[in-house]
């Protein structure tokens, strides 16, 4: 019993000492957040006719798909019996947010993402099917569902249907990540999680993370391909990044201020936790470095005239900090919510391991996997018109 109690301060119910949800469950909302955010950025162009961000449209969709495909993997690794996961679809418990989320995920993946990508790329797929041979041709033909029709009229229809799907896609993206927030926010047993603001806070930080991801991807891909960055596009993305972040920050501060003001029975315990165990990840990484500093940088760029090079540098800096901050936010919610006892009388420690099923190593690999998938997707479905001079990308 000694070993299990190591790292416990005060009193924890005996069954609470070991954390239930590990870094894998921190990863999961982070990944689905990136998906929702990337999609919403893509839909800005499609639905709200923000022409400036057009260059990133296809890249944003492919990025969303890559991360969407990886999203269930941390969950599978975490489950005690992953071979039983089909049960969530066969006998979903309709009162369980987790069960219903399985359908939201499936809906979003198939009816929104895959359909939208297919409709936008269909012409390119059919053209590729016509111009390749062998297995590659078989693949493209299958992707075209063995249809060869890319007449003007059919493409017009695709565009209309695609627009309709994007319109449904926006509330679907909200639902996708809002649901994840609700999974936490609806647990009355946990005062750190239980708040109606949780789905909205999750959603807005997801939007920020997705926008940043597409922005950074666009900059990196342009650098690799040695193509010029459309500064109009980049500046517009950065502006949306800032707006979304300001809303997100306000919501998080609202939650914090509300807790401090009302100071209910959980306050003392949670306050102590934030000042000790969660100080680095919450105050320093999430709030200061991860939110306030990037917002100030972005604000500065709006107020002071700067060269494109300077702006690019600041966008990268604020983007990286924001990503760290948003990851830290997921950490603080998931891990933080389990560090204190439900008796409000004690604290435990998260003992993260490295090379175990729920350790740090699989988490790092899972974060890298979407980029591998994205590479494959980009080769298969290039997001940009082919350049005459062939390059590494």
């Amino acid at each position, binding site marked *: 019993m000694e070993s299990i109690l190591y790292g416990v301060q005060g009193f924890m119910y*005996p*069954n609470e000492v070991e954390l239930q*949800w590990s870094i894998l469950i921190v990863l999961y909302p982070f990944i689905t957040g990136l998906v929702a955010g990337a999609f919403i950025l893509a839909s800005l162009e499609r639905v709200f006719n923000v022409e400036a961000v057009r260059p990133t449209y296809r890249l944003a969709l492919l990025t969303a798909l890559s991360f969407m495909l990886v999203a269930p993997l941390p*969950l599978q690794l975490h489950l005690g019996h992953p071979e039983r996961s089909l049960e969530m679809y066969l006998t979903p*418990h309709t009162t369980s947010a*987790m069960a219903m989320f399985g359908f939201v995920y499936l809906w979003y993946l198939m009816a929104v993402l895959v359909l939208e990508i297919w409709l936008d790329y269909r012409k390119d797929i059919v053209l590729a099917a016509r111009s390749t041979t062998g297995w590659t041709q078989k693949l493209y033909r299958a992707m075209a569902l063995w249809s060869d029709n890319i007449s003007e009229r059919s493409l017009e229809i695709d565009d209309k249907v695609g627009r309709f799907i994007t319109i449904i896609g926006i509330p679907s993206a909200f639902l996708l990540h809002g649901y994840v927030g609700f999974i936490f926010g*609806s647990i009355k047993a946990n005062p750190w999680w239980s708040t109606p603001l949780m789905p909205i806070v999750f959603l807005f930080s997801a939007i920020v993370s997705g926008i940043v991801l597409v922005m950074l991807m666009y900059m990196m891909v342009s650098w690799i391909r040695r193509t010029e960055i459309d500064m109009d596009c980049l500046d517009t993305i950065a502006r949306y990044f800032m707006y979304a972040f300001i809303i997100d920050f306000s919501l998080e501060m609202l939650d914090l201020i509300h807790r401090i003001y009302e100071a209910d029975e959980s306050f*003392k315990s949670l306050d102590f936790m934030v000042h000790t165990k969660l100080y680095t990840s919450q105050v320093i990484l999430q709030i200061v470095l991860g939110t306030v500093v990037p917002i100030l940088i972005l604000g500065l760029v709006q107020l002071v005239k700067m060269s494109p090079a300077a702006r690019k540098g600041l966008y990268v800096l604020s983007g990286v900090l924001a990503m760290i901050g948003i990851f830290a936010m997921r950490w603080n919610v998931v891990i933080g919510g389990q560090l204190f006892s439900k008796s409000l*009388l004690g604290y435990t420690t998260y003992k993260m391991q490295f090379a175990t099923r729920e350790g740090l190593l699989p988490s790092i690999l899972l974060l890298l996997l979407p980029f591998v998938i994205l590479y494959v997707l980009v080769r298969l479905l290039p997001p940009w018109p082919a350049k005459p001079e062939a390059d590494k990308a």
Partner: protein
Amino acid sequence: MTTDRRDFLKSAGAFIVLTGAASLAWEKVLAGEPEKAPNYKMSDHWWAMTIDIEKCIGCGNCVRADKAENDVPEDFFRTWVERYHVPEGSEDHPEVDSPEGGFNGFPEKYRAGDGSKNFFVPKLCNQCSHSPCTQVCPVGATFESPDGAVLVDKSYCLGCRYCVQACPYGCRYIDPRKNVVDKCTLCYHRITKGLTTACCENCPTGARTLGDLKDPKDPIHAFLRTHKVQVLKPQMATGSKMYYNGLDGSVR
């Protein structure tokens, strides 16, 4: 919208609704087998328990009995006992300990006459009638039985741990040997045979007593009427059926 598209959507919609209805009907066909229990009728019982703080001596018999009866893994507890040490004025932050859940009793660490209040509180699954753990289970692996016990279907549990998070009382855990959830089952295998739970059986002072709220002759009715009883965390409205007598306000 053109008529073609409208027609397509109409027929697709109809198809989905009809197949949905068909699958629900099919489910009903598959389910529904008559109850096979010999003498025990679930509808005759509604299980609860009374725990009398004024009688608990912290001997730990209940913890040991439960471990022996229910194959509880080491380091985890279906039931445990907490010791409260409440110096005057610190009702909102009592000192609590539960060394190995009370399995080996409680070595003395306080002195008499220091002006504090000290007592034991046995804890277990509250067998909630509006159980938050059942609400969040994604697949139906944990459930409220018709006779009022909250049980776990170990062959169906995914080990997602959502129910562990949702329980306000900390009574659930993952069995590391099977990677599924486990918790106090109110000794369902005993109470359906007319025996009492292992913990109540072995409590030497009668601090823990199983009760059947549907049995008019059960002493629990008189107990609830004549004692000032409370449930743990009443503000959570879980419908807990563990009724504590003499529960101090400092108890968490």
